[in-house]
């Protein structure tokens, strides 16, 4: 029941807010949303405390018939790969609700409701074990995000919202055909775990692999289908950017581990070079692109793509360090990129500009805020003792284990990462006060302090003591790798 609660508590609360909330009672709506978000987070805590780290099996399983005609089941469960994303999603939603407190003034109930519903849907994606249930959640997340970008976004929001929706839909519709194909190959079952065991011929595996690649690479996003992300990020409101970067991109990465690798292992090994090449291009080329951005949000958006390159790189070198590193990087990026976007949001709320050139010397007027911002900047470029370091380090180690030269190329990304992040930090926060806008800045209030503080604690904790995270993953990842190493071609 725990997972159902984690999914449907925020959805029910969000629907309630949509139905009952009015702008005249915006204050009450905010408190209701916060209560709902915190409650939804609290119900995910037993997942962490009650998780059995000594097995790779699915836990907290719920399995009932849903649509009998197609044998679609309401089958939920988490293993070491997916468990952490459930509390992470709920946690980020709490942060988003806090971040919107005074900033969103119109249609507060719709804003809060959309994020709560989105949170429940994304938890659904991470815990679905039935292919069609996964697809329903995966697609349904588009609706609230489309509205969030389109209603509360920047000047070019309509274009960004359409691009976001159609790009993602295009990818996932091909996955739908793949799911139907698997349904008939497995004699009428949508069970993902049954598909893992299903023998498949080489040709079928290849096209399934590419159908899934279409869906997940758009969502990650991988080079060259990443172009929707900078647009979406720049136009989305702060909360939208946070959820997009912190959770939504992970849906794609997660899909690789749940579908592509175990269902088509032979094709995955055969085409790993392609994914590795795309990942390295993302890491190096997108890193360079990030360097020249003038808009802070765009810079962080490109930095996200580069970081996601690390994740997919880790997944496709097929060793434990790589895959676990990718997973750790996913969680760490959730905290760090979320925090980066919040920092930009804090500045934007005051000055209404995202241009790096509009700032300079912010540290003089906002010392507390600058401390946070510099800390998250450091985490973004992978400073040891922050969450950003652990995942990148593991992936690089894993890559070196597989191939020294690939590892070397991946490691250069750390240099680019440091370069674009620190350069931005220097231009925005340090130096003399650049203009009157900056002179008029007031430091962060308690609300913003709490929101950034929570993320800073999480980032630091994960950087200093990542063991709880890797312990959870260990068995599931080894099991997955063992599975991927075995051929599924029919003999």
């Amino acid at each position, binding site marked *: 029941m725990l997972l159902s609660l984690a999914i449907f508590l925020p959805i029910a609360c969000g629907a309630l807010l949509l139905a009952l909330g009015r702008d005249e009672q915006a204050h009450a709506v905010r408190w209701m949303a916060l209560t709902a978000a915190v409650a939804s987070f609290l119900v995910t805590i037993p997942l962490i405390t009650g998780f059995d780290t000594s097995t790779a099996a699915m836990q907290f399983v719920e399995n009932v018939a849903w649509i009998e005609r197609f044998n679609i089941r309401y089958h939920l469960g988490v293993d070491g790969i997916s468990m952490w994303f459930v509390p992470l999603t709920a946690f980020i939603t709490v942060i988003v609700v806090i971040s919107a407190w005074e900033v969103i003034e119109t*249609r507060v109930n719709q804003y809060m409701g959309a994020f709560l519903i989105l949170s429940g849907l994304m938890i659904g994606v991470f815990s679905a074990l039935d292919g069609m249930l996964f697809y*329903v959640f995966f697609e349904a997340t588009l609706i609230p995000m489309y509205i969030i970008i389109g209603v509360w976004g920047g000047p070019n929001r309509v274009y960004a919202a359409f691009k976001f929706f159609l790009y993602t839909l295009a990818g996932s519709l091909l996955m739908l055909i793949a799911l139907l194909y698997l349904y008939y190959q497995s004699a009428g079952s949508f069970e993902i775990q049954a598909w893992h065991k299903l023998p498949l011929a080489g040709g079928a595996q290849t096209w399934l692999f590419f159908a899934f690649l279409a869906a997940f690479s758009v969502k990650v996003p991988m080079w060259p289908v990443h172009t929707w992300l900078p647009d979406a990020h720049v136009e989305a409101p702060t909360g939208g950017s946070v959820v997009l970067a912190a959770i939504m991109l992970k849906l794609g990465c997660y899909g690789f581990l749940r579908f592509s690798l175990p269902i088509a292992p032979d094709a995955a090994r055969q085409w790993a070079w392609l994914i590795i090449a795309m990942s390295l291009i993302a890491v190096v080329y997108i890193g360079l692109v990030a360097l020249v951005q003038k808009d802070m949000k765009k810079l962080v958006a490109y930095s996200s793509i580069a970081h996601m390159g690390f994740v997919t790189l880790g997944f496709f070198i097929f060793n434990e360090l790589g895959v676990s590193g990718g997973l750790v990087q996913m969680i760490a990026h959730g905290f760090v990129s979320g925090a980066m976007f919040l920092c930009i949001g804090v500045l934007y709320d005051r000055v209404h500009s995202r241009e790096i050139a509009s700032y300079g010397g912010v540290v003089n007027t906002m010392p507390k805020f600058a401390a946070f911002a510099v800390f998250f900047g450091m985490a973004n470029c992978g400073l040891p003792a922050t969450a950003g370091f652990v995942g990148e380090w593991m992936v690089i180690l894993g890559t070196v284990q597989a191939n020294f030269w690939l590892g070397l190329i991946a490691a250069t990304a750390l240099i680019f990462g440091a370069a674009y992040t620190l350069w931005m930090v220097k231009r925005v926060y340090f130096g003399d006060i650049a203009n009157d806008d900056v002179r008029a800045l007031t430091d962060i209030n308690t609300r913003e302090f709490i929101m950034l503080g929570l993320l800073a604690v999480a980032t630091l904790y994960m950087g200093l003591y990542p063991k709880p995270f890797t312990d959870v993953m260990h068995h599931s990842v080894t099991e997955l790798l063992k599975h991927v190493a075995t051929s599924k071609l029919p003999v």
Partner: protein
Amino acid sequence: MNDMNWLAVYPEILLLVMGCVVALVDLWVTDEQRRPTYWLTQLSLAVVAAMHFYYFDAGFTTYAMQGMVVADPMGHLLAGFACVATIITLVYARPYAGVRDMLKGELFILSLFSLLGICVMLSANNFLVIYLGLELMSLSLYALVALRRDHAVSTEAAMKYFVLGALASGFLLYGLSMMYGATGSLSIPEVFDVIAKGVPNRSVLVFGVVFVVAGLAFKLGAAPFHMWVPDVYQGAPTAVTLLIGGAPKLAAFAITIRLLVEGMIGLAVDWQQMLIVLSVVSLLVGNLAAIAQTNIKRMLAYSTIANMGFMLLAMTSGVVNNNTLSAANAYSSAMFYAVTYVLTTLGTFGMVILLARQGHEAEELKDFAGLAKRSPWFALVMTLFMFSLAGVPPTVGFYAKLAVLQALVSTHVDGYLYLAIFAVVVSLIGAFYYLRVVKVMFFDEPTDTAPLVAPADVRFVMSLNGAAVLVFGLLPGGLMALCAQAIVKALAT
């Protein structure tokens, strides 16, 4: 099979009697709002719907009127849905008709008679009965389109509808006469038997099938026989558009099943190819042309064409390599598609009606601007309809598309797999113009900030309609099972 068996046709008889009673009662109604007529009509519809659902529940297949009529679960289920659709239509239509001087007895009487025509088609077991029902429905609808006889656009639409509809009936009748010539019978089961035995003159049969399919395509509004759809949908008063876009689609689906599947499944190889062409062209024309529309009624008309294409796609996969194993799956998917499409389409046109005010038809896309600020609840409901038409989960439209796609993939034939991929790609194009409506409602600023005013019953039914799209989306199993049950029984006889 050769007795009258009146019991089986009680619902139709009741409908006929009530149609006449309403016509008589209306003569003495002095109320401007036509309340007695309205409630009497709704009551008759509710009783007829209840009777059909009751018969469906009993699950028998009986023949009546000396084998002219078959009362089977598929007919009863669809007739029940058609009655419900008409009830919803009249709820939406009443306030609209009231301010446009259309609220006369004719509106209700003609609606009842068109429904009677639909019910006759749904339970036809003979070519002539199908034709009879079709004409009864069509003539009522022609008259309804022209109900505002001093309104130039409406009368033009009525003329177009009448001329092209008559042409389509001619096609169908010509095709049916060919079938009669080749098989020597007008009775559907007998035609089936003759074709199963192998007729000497197959080319006459195939020639007849071509005309029958063309006639059906006209009635369904499938491209390239779709020319009348946008003009009539746009030109007719929106309340009548709702009536044309709703229940008649169920009838068109049913006669496709009766004629092509129950009568001529032996010729499936021939008509399936035609349906594939029709559906591919419809999907392309419907989705591409809809992008260019700024009039929402026209856009929805093209969306109808595309949706009919999608539904026909499912009908093409019933017989694979002379094997009818997948027939039940394919046709019940098509039926599910038709039923859910009607449910969604009632809501979308209902919303267009809702936006219209005295002296102003809210037909342009820009009339929806900022609806989310004016009436957030209705905007939300309309969003559900749009996402359902676009096929995004968790709305019912997704499962309708899923059902059709799985029917195609289940054939294990490469050609059908390509068709499925094609269908998916065009639905992506379709998603654009449905999203645009959501965009207009949520992202644009309203030109008119007044909230929508609607009577309580309209608000209630509209909310119910939206809820149904969502609830059937979350739990589609029940409705799917009903459709499967109806089709299995229809194929068994």
